[in-house]
């Protein structure tokens, strides 16, 4: 009798299990990014939140070094082995779109999101390429001017507000042994110059941070570098690498890696701080939080300085995504509060304004609260298709100048502007 009851119970349980709504198929979304361990943790947490409303769905994120990310994404999309989603800076997704033409237009997806008031006009503009919304913006990339706090204290200085402040503090950082090791081995600033994007990226920060709107060319195709306000910033920028001696002499060969070595090795007192840097630099093994962030220096009394928005990081869906509908759902979910909170806490950036920032360090809060005026890049590559080639030529010209500095930079700038005008006209004609 007992056996019969037991068998009966098992039968009923099995029948109940078969009848229960388990038709939710286990699905895994794969997302490729270049955010390293912090990004992996962010997507893991967002995926776990997403799974609460989508039983059986899991999210697996894979981080590649940026250059590998490019090659893998392009080849996978072109060979129909694409991941479900990709995540990166806007301009990198543009390159993927240019190479493949297979990034999904997310305009309809954005339209279907009710809660999106936190996305500004600039955010949406940089997410759009040739009338196609290629990313949903998930993180604003903020870059501020950073200074070693203990070095400021030791030299009796405050956070620099103007370019003259920066010049004075740079000289002190170089000459007054701010790290107290008894050797003259410190520099005012850590910059980079080696690769085309390195040098122009640094110039972008000084230009946009000083309140100007275009580094090289404006949307109408006008070369801007010899306009008086621009020429002033460019000349001072070039002197920083040469006659001012504010950077290490080898900076001409420095790329990101070497620049970070100079910053983290306590060899320079002023540097770029990205919102994604802060969490790591708060760590005792890095800068131990010994830095303060603020807007880029002011070059003219009548122009407001700013923290620079270097772009938007966002999520894109390849048209041949294996689980396209679900991928779009997850992309939308990344704009939700839970995913945005994870993004803010683990990567240091988000786009929503209603996030809880209390648990963040004061340095993280500086970015999270967006305490200063923000100025965004102008993204000329989205307007002028020839821009990358023009920029590469501009970089070569500037590097040649830094390698053999002229006695007077003004004729150099005028000559460079002339060459850029001729090249832009030629490239425009050939395009």
């Amino acid at each position, binding site marked *: 009798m007992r056996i019969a009851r037991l068998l009966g119970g098992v039968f009923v349980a099995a029948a109940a299990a078969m009848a229960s709504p388990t038709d939710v198929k286990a699905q895994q979304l794969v997302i490729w990014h270049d955010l390293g361990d912090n990004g992996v943790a962010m997507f893991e947490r967002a995926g776990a939140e997403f799974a609460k409303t989508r039983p059986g769905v899991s999210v697996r994120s894979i981080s590649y070094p940026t250059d590998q990310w*490019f090659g893998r994404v392009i080849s996978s999309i072109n060979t129909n082995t694409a991941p479900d989603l990709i995540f990166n800076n806007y301009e990198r997704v543009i390159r993927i779109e240019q*190479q493949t033409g297979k990034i999904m237009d997310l305009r309809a997806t954005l339209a279907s999101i009710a809660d999106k008031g936190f996305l500004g006009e600039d955010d949406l503009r940089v997410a759009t390429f040739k009338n196609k919304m290629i990313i949903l913006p998930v993180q604003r990339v903020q870059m501020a001017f950073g200074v070693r706090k203990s070095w400021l204290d030791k030299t009796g200085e405050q956070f620099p507000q103007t370019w003259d402040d920066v010049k004075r503090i740079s000289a002190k950082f170089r000459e007054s042994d701010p790290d107290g090791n008894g050797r003259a*081995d410190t520099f005012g600033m850590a910059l980079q110059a080696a690769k085309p994007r390195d040098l122009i990226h640094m110039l972008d920060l000084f230009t946009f941070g000083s309140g100007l709107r275009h580094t090289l060319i404006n949307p109408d195709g006008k070369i801007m570098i010899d306009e008086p306000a621009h020429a002033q910033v460019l000349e001072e920028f070039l002197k920083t690498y040469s006659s001012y001696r504010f950077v290490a002499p*080898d900076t*001409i*060969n420095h790329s990101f890696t070497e620049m970070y070595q100079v910053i983290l090795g306590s060899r320079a007192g002023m540097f770029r701080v990205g919102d994604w840097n802060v969490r790591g630099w708060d760590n005792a093994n890095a800068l131990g939080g010994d830095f303060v962030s603020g807007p880029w220096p002011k070059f003219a009394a009548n122009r407001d300085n700013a923290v620079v928005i270097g772009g938007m990081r966002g999520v894109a869906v390849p048209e041949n995504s294996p689980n396209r509908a679900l991928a779009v759902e997850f992309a939308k979910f990344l704009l939700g509060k839970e995913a945005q909170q994870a993004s803010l806490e683990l990567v240091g950036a988000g786009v929503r304004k209603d996030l809880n920032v209390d648990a963040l360090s004061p340095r993280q809060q500086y970015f999270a609260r967006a305490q200063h005026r923000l100025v965004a890049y102008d993204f000329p590559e989205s307007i002028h298709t020839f821009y990358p080639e023009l920029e590469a030529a501009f970089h*070569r010209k500037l*590097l040649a100048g830094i*390698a053999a500095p002229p006695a007077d930079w003004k004729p150099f700038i005028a000559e460079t502007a002339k060459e850029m005008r001729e090249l832009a006209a030629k490239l425009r004609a050939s395009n």
Partner: protein
Amino acid sequence: MPALPAPTRLQSAVEALNLAWRNRVFYLFVAPFAALTIVFGLWPIALSIQVSLTASASALSPNPTYVGLANYATVLADPIFIASLWRTLWYAALAVAANLAFALGVAILIDSPRLRAGSMFFRLAIFLPVVTPDVAGYVVWRWLYDRSFGAINAAAEQLGLPAFGGLSSVDTVTIAVLIAELWHHAGFYMTIFLANLAMRDRALEEAAAIDGATTWQKWRFIILPQLRPAIVINLVYATVQFLKTFTVVVVMTKGGPAERTNFVSYYAYQLFDQGRYGEATAMASLLFAIVIALSLGAFKLSEGRAPK
């Protein structure tokens, strides 16, 4: 005497098959290596040449758009590539001469009976950099050259010498890179020279000495001709090596300052990084053709001048 009838095609084919069958064990053993060579050696080269004939935007797609020689035309019209090509040829010539001269000089010193006691130590000391990972070695060289905390400038300062521009000066970067490469590669060439020196016929030198030959005459007319195999091997290998100079540039200079070390391999890599696959592989293919032509030329030259 009547001429023998020429074998028919069928007979030739049967003979070839018979020969293959007689050597079947040899072919069986060779087959895996031949397959590996084709798959991993020749196939990527063929694929690279194929990509160089396609439009970059479609290069990695299943159905690429073929553009004929357009990428080659673009590359050859690019003044930066032409400058880079000349720079590469110049640097390769300089590096080959410096490496071979240094390696030969060191090999002669180490081969000397007077240095027999420390011979093994010097061999090891000079060969060690060859087996050192190149990236690690070049990172250390970059530190040595650093103008703010590098050992070279620290020593120069102690000795009251002017500062060395190292990697950050257009005047010194080529020599700085060349020295680092010499450190890494010369041990290999030295080993080849040492092997050849050990194999030479010493009786000829004794005979020359009896005939009153001076040391210089012995080297010029007896020893150097016997080193021809090592010289040819080293010459070809070094030419190939330095025409493809890449790692040292990535680690130490990134093509700078002011393009002074922007050699063809690195320039192609930069274009590849920008997604300009067609032009990048066109550059690589042109470099490949130059390397093959120079290597074959060196072999032909050595064959033509070989002692009869």
